[in-house]
Structure formats: structure tokens, C-alpha cells
């Protein structure tokens, strides 16, 4: 079965096995341009592993992952990033020893080779873009603060900013509002809604209120397989989903 070209991302028969344990098992799903897909599922369903497989952090045992007709499974992480896939980790992952400005600068999509990095100059377009992104993620007042001094929520925003500056076509976010206060959550939901406008996203989230806010479609994973897929309402009504979440 060939991947259909009108999808931005097609994942087919994706499987990974860790010493016989299949964390993701024959998984297939498709993401359309401008779609925001939310993946939910109980702990250990393989949600994070799916993102790891797509962005090349974990090597798949078998299957296909096509992004704009490029096979991602054969590419290195940095090549996947340059192809247009951005990834945010579950725990906020920023460079604590560097300032917010420098964190964003490193993610700026220029000078990514060794010599490019040596010759990289902090010119006006770079500064303008960094300021613009910092404003978007509510950090414009903290540009020259070390990232270590940011609050948990601010670190999450910084990491989102680091993805934004790459301008990826597919944004993969692993629990972007975890550990945030209610106010921060609201702000983040607005932020995500805004940045997801002209690109696609795959979001892992537990907070159902939040999922309802942003999801175009929802995929429910259970034991490495798709349990149900469709609109939020469809998924919530699915007896299989109810069984997994409430049953036993």
C-alpha cells in the first residue's frame, strides 16, 4: 500500500520492539496539512515512543514514516529537523547555562554546519527574528536571563519558542502544559492555537479540556496500537475507549 501524497505525514505499520516487547505495534495513522492531531492513551501506551520514532530518536524495527514523500526512518535526527519536523520533549529541555537569547539563537535555522557555526554572525535579521519569537512566547523581558532561572512554565514556553524559530511544518509536542499553573495553561492553549494555524501538529496530552480546545482529530493509543480515531466526540463515545480508561 503506497502512502497517499495528500497527507503531510503518513505512518504505516510502524513497529518497535525492545527485546521482544513491542512498545509500538503495527501502528498506522495519517496527518493532513494544517491538522492538529492529539494522541491520548493510558500510561505506557507508547505515545512518547511514537514521537521518538518519527523524529529519529529511536530506531524503528519495521514500518514506514513518510513526511512530504521523504522516508524519515532512514534519516538522522538533524536531517529530519531540516526536513521540517520539530520536536518538544516531555520535560522542558533547554540549555540552562545559556541565556534565553542564546537558546533561541542556537535554534535559529542558519549556520548549522561546523564552519557555519564558527562564522555565524548575530546580524539584524537574526536579532529581529529572535525578538519576535521571544515576544510570541511571552519571554521578551527575559531575553538576557540564563534559562536556568526561568520557571517551569517559562522553560516550556522557551522550548516551544525554540521550535517556532525553526518554522517547522510539523510540530510535535509532548505534554506541553504538564506542570503548568491554570493561568499558564490558558496562555499556552492560546499560544498553541495561534502557532498551529499555518502548520500541522501532533500533540500528546492528558488534559481533556485542553485536548478539546486544540484537537482537529484524536488518536487513542493502547498497548502500542490504535484503539480509536476520530473527532473528540467520536472518541469519547467509543465503548472501547471507555473500557480502557474506566474498565477492569
Amino acid at each position, binding site marked *: 500500500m503506497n502512502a497517499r501524497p495528500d497527507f503531510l505525514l503518513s505512518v504505516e505499520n510502524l513497529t518497535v520492539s*525492545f*527485546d521482544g516487547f513491542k*512498545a509500538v505495534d503495527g501502528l498506522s495513522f495519517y496527518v493532513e496539512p494544517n491538522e492538529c492531531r492529539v494522541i491520548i492513551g493510558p500510561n505506557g501506551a507508547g505515545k512518547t*515512543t511514537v514521537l521518538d520514532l518519527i523524529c529519529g*530518536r*529511536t530506531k524503528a524495527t519495521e514500518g514506514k514514516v513518510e513526511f512530504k514523500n521523504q522516508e524519515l526512518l532512514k534519516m538522522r535526527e538533524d536531517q529530519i529537523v531540516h526536513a521540517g519536523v520539530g520536536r518538544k520533549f516531555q520535560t522542558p529541555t533547554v540549555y540552562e547555562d545559556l541565556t534565553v537569547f542564546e537558546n533561541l539563537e542556537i535554534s535559529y535555522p542558519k549556520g548549522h554546519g561546523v564552519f557555519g557555526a564558527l562564522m555565524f554572525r548575530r546580524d539584524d535579521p537574526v536579532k529581529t527574528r529572535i525578538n519576535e519569537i521571544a515576544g510570541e512566547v511571552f519571554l521578551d523581558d527575559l531575553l538576557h536571563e540564563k534559562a536556568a532561572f526561568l520557571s517551569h512554565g517559562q522553560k516550556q514556553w522557551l522550548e516551544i519558542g525554540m521550535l517556532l524559530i525553526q518554522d517547522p511544518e510539523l510540530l510535535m509536542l509532548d505534554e506541553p502544559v504538564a506542570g503548568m499553573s491554570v493561568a499558564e495553561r490558558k496562555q499556552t492553549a492560546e499560544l498553541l492555537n495561534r502557532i498551529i494555524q499555518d502548520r500541522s501538529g501532533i500533540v500528546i496530552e492528558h488534559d481533556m479540556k485542553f485536548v478539546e480546545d486544540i484537537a482537529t482529530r484524536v488518536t487513542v493509543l493502547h498497548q502500542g496500537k490504535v484503539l480509536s480515531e476520530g473527532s473528540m466526540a467520536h472518541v469519547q463515545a467509543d465503548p472501547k475507549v471507555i473500557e480502557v480508561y474506566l474498565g477492569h
Partner: protein
Amino acid sequence: MFADYTMGELGAIFAMQGFAGLILFSVFVLMALGLAIIFGQMGVINMAHGEFMILGANVTYLTSNLFANYIPSLFSIYFFLAMILAFFVTAALGMLVEWSLIRHLYKRPLDTLLATWGLSLILQQVYRSVFGAREVGVTIPEWMMGSLPLTDLIEIPINGIFVMVLAVGISTAVYIMMFRSSWGKQVRAVTQNRVMAGAVGINTERTDRLTFGIGCGVAGVAGSAFTMIGSTGPTAGQLYIVDTFLVVVFGGAASLLGTIASAFSISQAQSIMEFFLSGSMAKVLTLLTVVGILMLRPQGLFALKLRK
């Protein structure tokens, strides 16, 4: 090069060479077992591992002198007592080191490396001050000297057999302790998830200290066994350290079976090559091969594919 020998002589040479390889294998296993616990299970890089072995050797030396001077009638069995003493003395020092040094550094493995190197320098100097700069040899009891004639041509040294038996015995003990006892389970729980292990009621500090101590104790027994086949000087520990780490890493750090398999392949490769080449070239080629394979397969021979 074989033309001058008869078939029988050739066979004997190969048998003896093979046996020399087996002794080297036992030596490697003994060296590596303690480190397989400390580095493989706990993830601590103990560069003073060699010095712990030398401590075991020195304890053996002292015990043998003690028996020779005061209770010569029991001299033939002093060695067994010496090994037990060596175990406890080195284990005690190991626990002291864990308490004073290592426990502060569990999150900084590269710094452990530097600190334990400093420790090894200090221990070397202490040995030199106490036992003198020259190598000391232990008088081995009479029953351990000589060889068993297997055929007319093949002779097997008894102390070699003894070291082999010891290697098998200690490997079995370590295996049972680490993988078949509830205590071993605790050790592995602590290394895999310190916080969680603490939360379910394991005394992680005690477990760490005991594990480190036992790893050092095993090194001490190894050092004690080495006195049966050679002499030891204050700086001899440094000669072992690269070999020992390579054996453990090559085997796949977390696998005891891997450690033994890697000790076997490295020792056999070295002793076979020693027959054809000079000792130093055999060593160079063996180490190069190991490093080369590690570059191709960094996780070592036996390793699990883990979920990150």
C-alpha cells in the same frame, strides 16, 4: 616454524599454550568481576580498582609472613585464611571510600574517574612507604608448587589450576549474589531508579555502600589469588586497569556473562598471538582489535536494547 617439531610436540605446545590462555582467562575474570559489579552494575568508574587488588595481595603477603613466623605448622593452609582476610580488608576500605568519596559523585561519573585516580595515586604511595618500592613475592605452600604431569609432554602447573578453580568459584558466587538473591535485586533496583528504590523502602545508601564494598572485596580476593602466580609491586595496579576496563566494557557493561565471554576471547586472542609474535605486539594487536570492535559495536558483546 613448525618443521622442527614432531606432531606430538606440536600438540603439547598447543595444549600448554591453550592452558596458559586459560590461566590468563581466569586472571582476567578475577580482575574484571569486581569491576563488573562496581562499573557494570553501579556505573561507578573506579580507577583505583587495581590498587584494591594490590591491597589484597599485600594482605596475603602479610598473612603468609605471619604464619611462617608464628604458626609454621599451619602454613600449608594459610592461603585460605589470607583470601578471606583480603576480602574483608579491601571491602572495608571500599566502603570507607564509598562513604567519603563516591557517594558525593553518583551524578558526575567523569569526576568519579578523576577522584578515584587521585585515590589510586595515594594508595600507591602508601604501599610504597609501607612495603617498599620493590616487588614482593609470597612464599606459596608446597602443595601448590610443581605441576601435574598429564602426559609425558604436557604438564600443568598446580597454582594455575588453583587460580582457575578460584575464578569459577567466585564467578558463581557473584552470579548468585547479583542475579539470584533478593539482595542482588535491591542493588539492581537502586542503580536503575534510585529515587523509586528509596521510595519502596530500600535503604539505598546502605545498598550502595555494600555493593561498592563487595566489588572491592572481590578485587581484593583477585589480588590475593595473583600472589600465587606472580609478585606484586606498589604500582602493579596501574598495569591492570586498562585491561580490566576493556574486559568489562567489551563484554557489555551490565552483563556478567558478557564479562566472562569477553575475558575469554581477549585472553585467548592474546595468548595465541603471543605464540606467533613478541609479547608487546600481541598485546598491541589484541587491544587494537578490542578497541576496533568497540568502535563498531559500542554497547559491547552482550547488551540489551533499551527504551530511552
